[in-house]
């Protein structure tokens, strides 16, 4: 059952990042590739603080650092007019050095043996199963992040951010500072990603400079998979879908690992194929429906 619980843990932890990706990808409607860097940033900050004996501050500072990284990308996008994709890549690659600096010029920091969020939670509830404690903790963290975001997107500021994503020109005309809204959104997005990295470091017991590679893809896949199950009508449902998608993505990977049909070197292809199938289901379903309608129309015409 470790794999099943583990997949839920990882799904919730990376779900924090999926929330962030959802903000830029869907709400702001601007691609942001900072994630690979800001994930590792959160991871690095959290690990360094944990080694110093301050795991909780590690998480908080990780969120803050992620937001700062996002703000940099946002400013590059708006004030310096750098293309959003390039702005994200620039911040991401710059962060590589920043992350190494934060880790103390080491590419790998071990937290095995240092008390962290998960081991602390375990000492509070010594009679509970470790997997359950971890599940409750990751669930609570995810719930808090989700609730804060839902609250935020219903405040005046949040509504302005959403409006900016929907119709830039109209918002500009109504004298709202569009650039500021964009910076806020990208910062918020990367705060979530930094949060995700910060929790991941303490969960897996080490921080490695290579941990962020491919995170962006995982986040995007999670958001899109999640949307298969929820309508895109409200922000609340959208954010919920992002977390759900992340959990599902992890379960899919776990499934791929569990089956022993394919050789070890095929993992990437297999996981890509499974995600591809999941993503193509709506299209396939529409085709089938269309074919059904055609048949019916044909029958009606004959009858």
């Amino acid at each position, binding site marked *: 059952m*470790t794999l099943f619980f583990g*997949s839920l843990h990882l799904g919730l932890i*990376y779900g924090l990042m999926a929330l962030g990706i959802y903000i830029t990808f869907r709400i702001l409607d601007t691609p942001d590739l900072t994630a690979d860097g800001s994930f590792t940033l959160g991871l690095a900050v959290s690990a360094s603080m944990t080694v110093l004996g301050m795991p909780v501050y590690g998480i908080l500072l990780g969120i803050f650092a992620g937001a700062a990284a996002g703000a940099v990308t946002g400013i590059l996008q708006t004030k310096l007019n750098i293309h959003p994709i390039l702005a994200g890549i620039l911040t991401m690659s710059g962060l590589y050095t920043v992350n190494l600096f934060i880790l103390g010029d080491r590419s790998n920091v071990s937290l095995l043996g240092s008390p962290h969020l998960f081991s602390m939670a375990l000492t509070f509830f010594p009679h509970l199963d470790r997997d359950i404690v971890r599940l409750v903790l990751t669930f609570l963290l995810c719930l808090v992040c989700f609730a804060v975001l839902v609250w935020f997107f219903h405040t005046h500021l949040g509504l302005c951010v959403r409006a900016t994503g929907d119709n830039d020109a109209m918002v500009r005309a109504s004298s709202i500072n569009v650039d500021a809204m964009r910076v806020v959104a990208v910062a918020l997005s990367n705060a979530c990603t930094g949060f995700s990295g910060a929790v991941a470091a303490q969960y897996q017991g080490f921080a490695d400079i*290579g941990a962020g590679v*491919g995170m962006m893809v995982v986040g995007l896949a999670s958001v899109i998979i999640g949307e298969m199950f929820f309508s895109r009508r409200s922000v609340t449902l959208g954010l919920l879908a992002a977390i759900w998608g992340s959990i599902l993505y992890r379960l899919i990977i776990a499934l791929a690992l569990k089956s022993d049909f394919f050789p070890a070197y095929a993992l990437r292809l297999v996981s890509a194929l499974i995600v591809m199938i999941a993503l193509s289901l709506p299209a396939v379903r529409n085709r089938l429906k269309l074919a059904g309608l055609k048949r019916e129309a044909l029958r009606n015409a004959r009858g």
Partner: protein
Amino acid sequence: MMGIMGRNVGISVKKMGVLFLAALAVVFCGRVEAAPLKGGVYRVGIVQLIDNGAFADMREGYIARMRELGYGEDKMTFDYKNAQGDMSNLNSICQKMADSDLDAIVTIATPPTQAMVNLSPKAPVFFIAVSNPVAAGVITKMEKPDKNATGTSNAIPVDEMFRLAAKITPNVKTFGILYSNGEVNAVNTAKAAKAFLDQTKLYAYKEAIATSSSEVQQVAQSLVGAVEAIFIPNDSMIQSAMPQVVGVANEAKIATYGSSAVMVNSGAFATISIDDHVIGARTADMVDRYLKGASVEDIPSVVISDFVTLFNKTTADAVGVEIPEEFAKNSVLVK
């Protein structure tokens, strides 16, 4: 009409979701517990983070040694998984291993070992090639494993390497140390090299760091004119880009000292290193001791010291170095 269709779509998506979840539930819960050992077949998990030549050699060396020790295909099966560079998948793989009813888990290099030890699985963890197990946190004291994990360290003999260089390429004044700062084993070895040179003043040195494989060539070129020899720690990124490094170095008549046989095979001038197959095999010996009844605490972690000296003849000719007779006799020449 559209409204109804829309609702239908919604429902069928949910239905599909429910079906999918049901399928997942069956897969995860269907097998309640892994079957007990059938006819004394040991099951060993092998976790690797990324594909590269050195790790593949270590894995093969491990498996080959197990077979040699009498654990044939009828006695031991391997569940080998590779995260292909994705750290989040590495966690899933380790969870999968912790879940399966394995007799031992073998991890290759530092991150998989850390991820595995962090899960504290029931089966003991035997690592291959963790350059500094104490710093990696997978063991508190090399002599007395305390976290149900033991294995081999591949600390490269940097002192031997520079002493070899002093004998074979005596005109060298400055060494370039070329590595990527993203790999913990490489950084550890580079640190050891710098510490040795700082202490002995044997050579001056200049560091050159690449952060991605596309930078390797230019970083190597930046050393031309400033150094007379290059040392490359155990670094899978530089190792993969070895032909580029050698191309630059040979043209400038700079001797490249590598840290693995793989590097010398792809053109580095020389190395004193541990055969990657041997590191794997030493870990296999530890697994054998455990399966024969020794407890993990009684199997100390060891720094492997079976060194081989390797030269690449083609490169030696290209950089104009004559390999002395005494070395040529006791070492391996490739190409």
